[in-house]
């Protein structure tokens, strides 16, 4: 094989493209000018490129979330929902029954027994009925979602029931801050904490708790 290639190389003729007709200085100058123009433009662009790359660097960090429905993000969401059901967020304990907002009322309706008073509020133009169950020391309101009724809010009415974290109506603002920390949202005389889509809201009158309410994100 080697013999073949060596012989081949030195025998090759050099073909040269002959240059075309004389007298193109004028065209030469035009091309010259065009090259210069492009050169200037390119320098300007490269400066711009540097600027942009810097922006791209920081741009990368500042791009806000593109609202993109992505199967992956759905996975995380559904996993997160499952967690909600089990233990995350603020859940109200009565005996061993767990009542969480956005939960289907029919699951716990029998267990909670006969409510002291029951009121139905059919919304105007038949857009679903809200139901209010009032028990001895707490009240549960539901909101319609398709055929099901989901728990909209749980209101604690007296101090022989408490939140899972041990706060009840007899306590004061300091107790809340001690247990739930400082990052609550204060609005008017309400102090609201949120965890995994569940809101826990304390209504105060001069540091005295007037009402404790678990509220779903829907309200």
């Amino acid at each position, binding site marked *: 094989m080697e013999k073949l290639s060596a012989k081949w190389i030195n025998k090759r003729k*050099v073909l*040269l*493209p002959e*240059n075309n007709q004389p007298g193109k200085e004028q065209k030469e100058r035009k091309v010259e000018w065009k090259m210069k123009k*492009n050169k200037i*433009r*390119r320098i300007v*662009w*490269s400066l*711009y*490129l540097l600027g*942009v*790359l810097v*922006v*791209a660097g920081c*741009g*990368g*960090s*500042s*791009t*806000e*979330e*593109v*609202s*993109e*429905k*992505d*199967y*992956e993000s*759905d*996975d995380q969401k*559904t996993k997160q929902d499952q967690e909600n059901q089990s233990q995350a967020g603020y859940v109200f304990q009565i005996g061993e029954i767990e009542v969480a907002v956005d939960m289907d009322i029919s699951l716990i309706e029998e267990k909670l027994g006969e409510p002291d008073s029951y009121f139905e509020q059919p919304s105007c133009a038949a857009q679903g009925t809200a139901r209010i169950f009032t028990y001895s020391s707490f009240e549960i309101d539901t909101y319609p979602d398709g055929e099901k009724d989901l728990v909209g809010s749980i209101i604690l009415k007296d101090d022989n029931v408490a939140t899972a974290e041990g706060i009840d109506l007899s306590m004061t603002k300091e107790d809340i801050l001690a247990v739930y920390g400082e990052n609550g949202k204060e609005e008017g005389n309400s102090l609201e904490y949120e965890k995994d889509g569940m809101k826990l809201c304390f209504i105060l009158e001069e540091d005295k708790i007037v009402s404790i309410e678990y509220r779903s994100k829907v309200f």
Partner: protein
Amino acid sequence: MLFTSYGFLLFLAVVLILYYGLPRRFQWPLLLIASYVFYGASGIGNLCYILATTLATGLLACKMQDVSDAQSKWLKGKGKEASREERKAYKQRMKKKRWRLLLLCLAVDVGMLAVVKYTGFAVSNLNVLIKALGSGRQLTFFDIALPMGISFYVFQAVGYGIDVYRGKYRAEENLFRFALFVSFFPQLIQGPISRFDQLSPSLFAPHKFQTRTISLGLQRVLWGFFKKLVVADRLIGAVGMLTKDTQTYEGCWVVVGMFLYAVELYADFTGGIDITIGIAQAMGITVQENFIRPYFSKSVKEYWNRWHISMGSWFTDYIFYPVSVCKPMLDLSSFSRKHLGEQAGRRAPVYASCFLVWAATGIWHGAGWNFLVWGLSNCAVLLVSQELEPLYRNFHERFQVAGTFGWRLFGVARTCFILCCLRTFDCYRDVPLTFRMLGSVLTSWNWGELFSPGRILELGLSWADYGVVLLGILLMLGVSLWQRKGSVRGQIAQKPYWVRFALWLSLFFMVIVWGSYGIGYEASQFIYNQF
């Protein structure tokens, strides 16, 4: 901005009116502005990515062009006297210079794409590795929002860069023109990945107002909307439920999921591409076909020549051939031919480059193990079918079935089945889960469930919806069969005016009435936007 939003329709109408309203020399600058407005609408932050890609590639390509111009000028001028060795050394030096410029261009483009798209994936796997090694420290990563369509325009720019490096065509001097090539809005979000020499002639040429081309283009856009809104988006909910709720929907439901996903994917991709090509055609610009009746292909190899053609040809031209011809690969080939014998020598480079190409295709689709495994299994199927060639050949010698309709039908069915199984990686997005679900088709035999009343309705589709999907499938099938005899719209255009008008009017109202858009339907999303 999504193709199926009211905003986009208004934007398109305005662009078309301006396009044919303004004097023809303003046409392509108008498109450039429109493309940046279109892309900016989905997030101002994204603009800096496309700007970075455009400028890096455009400038470096011009530089490469300067170097090769200088080289040919030198060869014509002083080079004549120089000896062969000197000329060869000079050419090598110049090639080395261009190679460095190309590397810089690739570094910027592919680097940016990798940073934006794969940091999350890389870091999370590193964390897994670190945890496996026992150290508690976990790397936190910066979850950068993935700008839409970045994979498409970056690859398009890279293809342009490589072509200029190879000297296939001259680099575009005017950076604005190049910016338009990269950011041409119909193909910005989901391709096709066009080649500069194919797109630029019609992209930059002035176009006269011709009702024929405009109506043909808009008809194709309407057909794209029909597939997208009436068929694809109607199935998103059902497919989503089937792929998410894997406890209840296994066994026969996996097969149902496969079928629905195949229909949804086809309608979504080809619908989107129809809209893209339709809009371009309405502006007199020709964009390459990206899907040619893929579900009629009789072998997986043929399928990948008909499905997402621009991506397939991009990977072949810019990864498969360069890799299989580069030095290390050739050394591998000669090495294996010497030591492992003739047959291994033939196969080694092809296997290696095929493996590389499909791994790249997989990863390009998304940062996830399931995409990688999807790519590699495709590669495995292709190589195995290539190996079995001799087996097929003597099978055909014994049974003369090759040309018969039955055999072709079997080929189509076999290909569809194989690809539906491969697509499940895309659906379940988790490799072990996918294998478990595929297994469950055989293990948990619950076909009875499929026919128990009401069970199929739990997927969120009423009988009426299933009827519409069936009609959609039949229409798409009919059009594909008709298309084999030449362009369908062309043949319709021969019909008398009122017949055509009635046809397009009924399609228009089918989209308006049966389209799944507006309140109550989630914002319909092009699946390809996530890639």
